């Protein structure tokens, strides 16, 4: 090493820049090795981060794949507004798929129950949407710190011809050498944010000033208060006798369908306040996602069937 060379220790990336470099590598690798990749766009904070990483990966070019939103028709109005504005504003192509057949047959969470509703409007719609677009790789924003069965998911997660995950027969994944080989009809779900934590995601949004759906910020909202649960009032949610919505200062910690996403009481109206809440409350973000708790090992069961 010559004297002019700076000390090696100065060449160290912060953990967020190291995660960013890894994710960009993954995104480029998929575009280079698959014929028809697509990015699943859920409108949430993780999707926003994934989208920014994709922009960075192909800069100064455009994102060379479409985004796909699986619309259950039970999303928050503010989510749909954001969906229709943000991707277009950065020049990304958005496609939307809905299981129209199930909707016209009357599928809804109030009558079917959350498990069946999610099976039809999310898992089925996702599998159909992917098959319809003939996509061979689909990016998802899932992270390994979200839930126990996700901790064992690969970055390239192989799905068979009917979209199912076999957790006991996953391909070994070493270094950053991803095996992209699939036969016709088989697909790979790719998780570029695998090694990010919820805190990393928020911190990155803060540092990069990434737009997110306003539902993440606290404000007074109409809510049904049932015990400690706050349930948003949208889509003719069936009320109990005598029940009335109240105005509550609250925010969403993760975004899903209105019926399945509880709010938390909060006064956090800025990103630092959200992060402060996160590091002091220490409750996992999926705690309020009803589908994770339908039964023991619930997420694993859903994933085997083809859910993200």
């Amino acid at each position, binding site marked *: 090493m010559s004297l002019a060379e700076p000390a090696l220790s100065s060449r160290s990336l912060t953990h967020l820049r190291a995660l960013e*470099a890894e994710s960009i590598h993954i995104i480029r690798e998929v575009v280079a090795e698959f014929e028809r990749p697509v990015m699943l766009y859920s409108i949430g904070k993780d999707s926003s981060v994934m989208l920014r990483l994709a922009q960075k990966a192909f*800069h100064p070019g455009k994102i060379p794949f479409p985004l796909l939103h699986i619309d259950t028709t039970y999303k928050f109005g503010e989510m749909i507004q954001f969906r229709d504005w943000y991707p277009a504003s950065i020049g990304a192509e958005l496609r939307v798929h809905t299981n129209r057949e199930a909707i016209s047959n009357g599928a809804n969470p109030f009558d079917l129950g959350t498990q069946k509703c999610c099976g039809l409007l999310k898992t089925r719609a996702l599998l159909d949407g992917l098959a319809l677009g003939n996509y061979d790789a689909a990016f998802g924003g899932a992270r390994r710190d979200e839930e126990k069965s996700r901790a064992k998911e690969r970055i390239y997660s192989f799905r068979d011809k009917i979209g199912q995950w076999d957790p006991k027969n996953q391909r070994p994944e070493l270094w950053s050498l991803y095996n992209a080989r699939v036969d016709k009809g088989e697909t790979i779900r790719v998780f570029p944010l695998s090694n990010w934590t919820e805190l990393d995601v928020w911190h990155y949004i803060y540092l990069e000033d990434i737009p997110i759906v306003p539902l993440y910020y606290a404000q007074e909202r109409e809510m049904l208060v049932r015990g400690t649960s706050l349930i948003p009032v949208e889509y003719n949610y069936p009320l109990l006798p005598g029940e009335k919505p109240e105005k509550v200062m609250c925010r969403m910690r993760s975004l899903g369908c209105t019926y399945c996403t509880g709010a938390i009481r909060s006064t956090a109206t800025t990103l630092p306040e959200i992060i402060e809440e996160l590091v002091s409350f220490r409750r996992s973000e999926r705690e309020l996602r009803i589908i994770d708790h339908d039964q023991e090992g619930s997420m694993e069961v859903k994933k085997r069937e083809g859910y993200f």
Partner: protein
Amino acid sequence: MSSASSIEQFLRDHEHSELLRFSTAGSVDDGKSTLIGRLLYDTKGVYEDQLAAVKNSRINRSTGEFDLSLLTDGLRAEREQGITIDVAYRYFHTPKRKFIIADTPGHEQYTRNMATGASTASLAVILVDARKGVLPQSRRHCTISWLLGIPHLVVAINKMDLVEWSEAVYNQIRADFLDFVAPLGITGLVFIPMSALEGDNVVEPSRNMPWYDGPPLLEYLETAPIDKQFNFHDLRFPVQYVVRPDLDFRGYSGQLASGVLRAGQRITVLPSGRTSRVRSITTWEGDLPEAFAPMSVTVTLEDEIDISRGDMLVDPSRMPHVSRRFESHLVWMSDAPLAANRPYLLKHTTQTTGATITTLRHRLNINTLAQEHPEGLSLNEIGLVEIETARPLFFDSYQLNRATGAFILIDPVTNSTVAAGMIAERKEENQAADLSAALRTDEFSAGRLTPAERYARWRHQPATVWLTARRDLAYLLERRLFDRGCLVHAVVDDFESHVLPELARFSNLAGMIAICSSASDDPEGRARAERLIGADRFLAPDPERLNVDDSTAAQQIIQMLENKGILPVDRFQTGEGI
């Protein structure tokens, strides 16, 4: 934390924290899950609702109030059997570092999972049960960590509470371990006595072991140097993707595998060997004066060179090895055993090419380190093999450079990943052994070089290819043959054409393949060359039948050379290119 300033401070600290990936291996019995549960719990890496679920669980295999090991139990099958089958990734952070734990099972039948976890780790925590001492499992983890090039190894001697915090027990285990690793040449091992269950020397120092004056595990994890993670000396930039938004911008995207890249720097492109200078290092944030591993960037060059995915930009003064043959350690990961001379696909950096395993040198017994000589390798076995690839790889030994010394093998039929490979340093004695093996059946005299010796070195026969007015084809063919490892020389019409036959003959005598291209049709010269060289070593393709496209024509000629027995048949020339 209550004021705005303290959260801003937290964000600044967290922003500047580094990333450390480490691996653990072991089963429930040696307290690994408890150790990880303890690290997560004591650093507040566990959410309250997750903790509540554990506290409410009917299962409690520990003697404590609740079972910390349940925090890390993942899949259903594992919960039912009480074992950890697959690699699970865990995350926690302290003000100094963010940590990623690759948590792997310790049983012999899960060696492949251990290797997977170790492949990205820069530190390994090897667990030893103080009551049981150094078990095959701890040896296995140590060997695999060493083989996968993890720079820092920590031996956590756990369950010290069950041996009355005995310094003598600790010293004995330490001595046994050092004996075991001596032949591997591992130095700088760190030993920490602890009780994950009681929390001694995990996050907090132990009050029960005043005789130990080293740091607790977490303190060591926070301070272990991590600059050895990357090689900053050898520039290796594998091209992943070409970004071409418009006619004015042509950028080569990739993640630096190692080294430092600077704007204005002179680089060589492999395999073409063309050189240029870096015009810009482009990122979303703007152009950078310098980029280093493991940054993901886009590079533009001053010259227009044909570069595509799989190519590599390097510093011409620090070249990698360029070869189709090398020795490598393999961790076999498939139920179907290794088959010699079967076609596999090999993925190395951003290049995928056909490969065969030509020789199994030995199998490494990971419990005893003995070298054994079986017929093949089965699931979870480790061996040293010789590999031959269809296209040349640009590589370094794994010990020098993890990113350019690593590869995976894929079964082209089942598409499964069947092996992980770590390229070994090239050894002169092996090359000599190859030579003597090749000569064993041939007549050999100690003095002059024989054609057989030349063949053993270059692996092809000498020959002359006679072309007419195909100068570009001659140079392309020369390049293609050179890339296959051939000794080759294009003799074109820069020379006076009447001596072409003699020049070709001389080249052939030196074992070389000569490619002659005469400026115009010269039947007399061609006939003389064929006479001088001999019909079996002379190839003059009919100009009418050669494709006008140089690349296709070069392929035609290579095929003819294979058919003629000049070149060994390359099984992958047609089936590759993934």
